[in-house]
């Protein structure tokens, strides 16, 4: 291949004068790193939520009184099953249990180990447990975070739960919940439904909520309406609504970061404008010389825009790669807490590496457009330097 003289000279010029671009490159890398780290975290969390939601039942039915969620009677199952199109209604028992210090809590989930599970992940979990042993006495499966908490508080084998009637209920740790569902299961305790009801103070004839499946997607809207009219205090949540709610929540969280980024970027654009005006005017003599020996305005524009583009590309590649390492290899210390909030027992979360084309292209687009747009005018004004400047 014939090498282009222009590219040769461009490379020469760029590397000989890289000091001019050093400061802007470093700041660019820092900005791109921050933005991509945040967006990587949010898209990874969204992804894991999508996966776990995908494994869940299509509908959740709750009872709401006075705006508060309350337990509902088991008989509702029969009524629901009479609705056409509805399949596989299952009961769920769950609730928060606050430990002694009343500050940390765990999510207790009671499941019917003998029945079919509404959730695929749970199904796998149940398969892996030796049921005969598990159900023989009071046993539970705990998430990583819960296990760590209990160990730290000298309950390595089991825990004495305080039931609402004031009695203590001793439950032994049978095992931990495998890490595959890390995000959702970290502060979870899984136990048989009867036991969970006792600890959470739920009456024997009641459950927390129900789930059901509707295999035909097209019927979702009509069935949702039909069920909602069955009882005056019933509330129906669809999987799609939950997906949307999560989507919005994380859009909101990363949107706030994005706004902050844009404000920073606006400042940076001004700095860039000034900086490049300065750098270029120090090169005025040299540019005048290039013009004098036969470079056209178009040639200078090309040279200078290539330089800016190079800065953008280099900072983009480095910034994004650093962010990838930070988020997915070093588990994003500090930033992740801002994202998940302080609610979980323990935030040691392994994010699933997801590199989303939308995220990558968004970062590239906004950064390149803002950067090049802000150097466009300084670049033009240096490119039209009069060649006679070289003679002064």
């Amino acid at each position, binding site marked *: 291949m*014939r*090498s*282009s*003289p*222009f590219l*040769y*000279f461009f490379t*020469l010029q760029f590397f*000989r*004068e890289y000091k001019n671009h050093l400061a802007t490159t470093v700041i660019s890398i820092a900005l791109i790193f921050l933005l991509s780290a945040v967006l990587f975290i949010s898209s990874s969390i969204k992804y894991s939520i999508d996966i776990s939601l995908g494994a869940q039942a299509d509908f959740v039915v709750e009872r709401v009184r006075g705006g508060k969620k309350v337990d509902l009677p088991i008989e509702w199952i029969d009524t629901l099953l009479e609705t056409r199109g509805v399949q596989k209604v299952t009961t769920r028992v769950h609730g928060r249990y606050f430990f002694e210090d009343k500050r940390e809590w765990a999510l207790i989930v009671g499941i019917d180990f003998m029945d079919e599970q509404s959730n695929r992940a749970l199904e796998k979990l149940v398969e892996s447990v030796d049921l005969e042993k598990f159900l023989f006495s009071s046993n539970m499966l705990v998430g990583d975070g819960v296990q760590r908490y209990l160990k730290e508080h000298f309950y390595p084998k089991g825990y004495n739960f305080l039931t609402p009637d004031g009695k203590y209920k001793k439950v032994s740790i049978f095992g931990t919940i495998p890490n595959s569902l890390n995000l959702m299961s970290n502060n979870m305790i899984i136990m048989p439904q009867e036991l969970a009801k006792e600890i959470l103070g739920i009456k024997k004839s009641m459950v927390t909520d129900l789930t059901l499946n509707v295999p035909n997607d097209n019927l979702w809207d009509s069935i949702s309406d039909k069920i909602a009219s069955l009882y005056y205090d019933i509330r129906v949540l669809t999987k799609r609504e939950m997906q949307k709610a999560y989507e919005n929540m994380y859009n909101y969280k990363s949107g706030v970061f994005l706004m902050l980024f844009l404000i920073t970027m606006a400042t940076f654009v001004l700095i860039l404008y000034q900086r490049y005006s300065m750098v270029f005017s120090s090169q005025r*003599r*040299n540019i005048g*010389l*290039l*013009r*004098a*020996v*036969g*470079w*056209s*305005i*178009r*040639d200078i524009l090309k040279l200078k825009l290539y330089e800016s583009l190079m800065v953008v590309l280099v900072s983009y590649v480095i910034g994004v790669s650093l962010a990838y390492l930070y988020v997915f290899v070093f588990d994003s210390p500090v930033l992740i807490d801002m994202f998940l909030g302080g609610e979980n027992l323990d935030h040691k979360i392994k994010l699933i590496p997801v590199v989303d084309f939308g995220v990558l292209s968004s970062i590239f687009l906004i950064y390149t457009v803002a950067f090049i747009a802000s150097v466009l005018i300084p670049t033009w004004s240096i490119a039209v330097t*009069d*060649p*006679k400047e*070289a*003679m002064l």
Partner: protein
Amino acid sequence: MITIEALQRYFDGGDERFYALKDIDLHIGRGECVVLKGVSGSGKTTLLGIIGGLDKPSSGKVMVDGEPISKLPDLHLSNFRAQKIGIIFQHYNLMDHLTSRENILVPLIPVANDMHRVEEMTDAAMKLASISHKADMQTSRLSGGEKQRVAIARAVVSDPDIILCDEPTANLDRENSLKFIESIQMLHQLGKTVVIATHDPLFDDLPFKSRVVHLEDGRLV
């Protein structure tokens, strides 16, 4: 080769109009060597700039090779400078962060489309100006005479018809100045049209055929 008719170049400063060049008519034939003489501020540099297409006249006509250059759009004018004109500047005007070789090939970049050709032409120019031995040295470390020779090599690298020199010996000692005149003689023998703006008396009687033109306050006398 170069025909100048009724050329004016003025600068509007405040409410006064300052004429740097006034009513210039000049014809320079192919292969001629013209020495522009005049005191400081008489308009020598301005005239050279207009002949080389670096500056634009305020009125009048400048023809080079039968083509009017005073109103050419930038793309064509730049191309004209690249192909037809070689300039040796008053202060050498080298790019300090580049080596001699890199400085010399600069005029070829926008017009050449093959790096091989660029290297060939650069080597030839360096040989002509006998600076090949300092090809890879940073120009900021060269001596004045060597810098001058790099400047000569850069002026001839694209094999232009016209060589313009602005005060070429202002910063040189006598010995180097004489060497420079030798180089000019060589270029003259190669058939280049040479225009030298200077007030150095060394150029008063050159060892080859030349014409001296006097400028005074922007007018030819």
